[in-house]
């Protein structure tokens, strides 16, 4: 029974990643007129990357941290849109495109999770529906 929902974990992680990215992108949009602001973005980390990051220790006698503080993604600065005179690098068009793409992916992963759970529910009801 323990691995009945094992397909849901990676989907849950993906949803977490997209939700956090939506905050980062909303922040970029809000700062379109802030002087010197450089837009940020979030890139995916594989489970191994975040697991290792959480467990890294600096002294061999220290214990590694529990993987509860897993990051949902790696922050990076995206200067590809070019900067204005006030040092602001935000392009509304680029951010709008990112917001749209991020939302679409979130919606699809959410629909995938729904479909998986529906299949499990069907099987759980002995194939007699509902």
């Amino acid at each position, binding site marked *: 029974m323990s691995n009945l929902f094992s397909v849901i974990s990676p989907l849950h992680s993906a949803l977490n990643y997209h939700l956090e990215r939506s905050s980062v992108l909303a922040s970029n949009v809000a700062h379109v007129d802030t002087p010197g602001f450089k837009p940020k973005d979030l890139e995916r980390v594989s489970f191994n990357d975040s697991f290792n990051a959480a467990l890294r220790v600096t002294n061999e006698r220290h214990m590694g941290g529990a993987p509860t503080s897993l990051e949902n993604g790696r922050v990076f600065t995206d200067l590809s849109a070019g900067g204005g005179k006030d040092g602001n690098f935000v392009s509304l068009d680029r951010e709008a495109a990112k917001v749209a793409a*991020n939302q679409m992916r979130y919606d699809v992963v959410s629909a995938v999770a729904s479909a998986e759970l529906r299949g499990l529910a069907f099987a759980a009801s002995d194939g007699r529906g509902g």
Partner: protein
Amino acid sequence: MLGTFSALEVSASGLAAERIRMNTIASNLANARTTRTEAGGPYKRIDPLFESKLLDSQGIESGAGRAVSTVHVARIVTDERPGQLVYDPGHPDANPDGYVEYPNVNVVEEMVNMISASRAYEAGVSAIDSIKQMASSALRIGR
């Protein structure tokens, strides 16, 4: 984890800031020909100064906590550049040389700023829309 509500808070701060900017633009346009103010001298155009502030939420363990900040108007900055001098000795506000100093408002520049603020406001609204839609689709999981 930074979630739906922090994203909404960030977007809301952007809308509020752009609205303040619209107000300063409106003030500049309305006073484009004001040669006399309470402080004496012609009207000087004003600009809001935006600054970012890290989101003060308890979930800043994640790396993205450093990447998300709300925007605030630090203060309203007065543009002290001199305005246009027009020779008009008959004008009540003329200086001893007969010149009247008009406000340093460039109407075309203000209109461009207004369009830019309006676009930024719309972008903020569509970001909020997108966040709301994501929450709606999460609600449909398992239905």
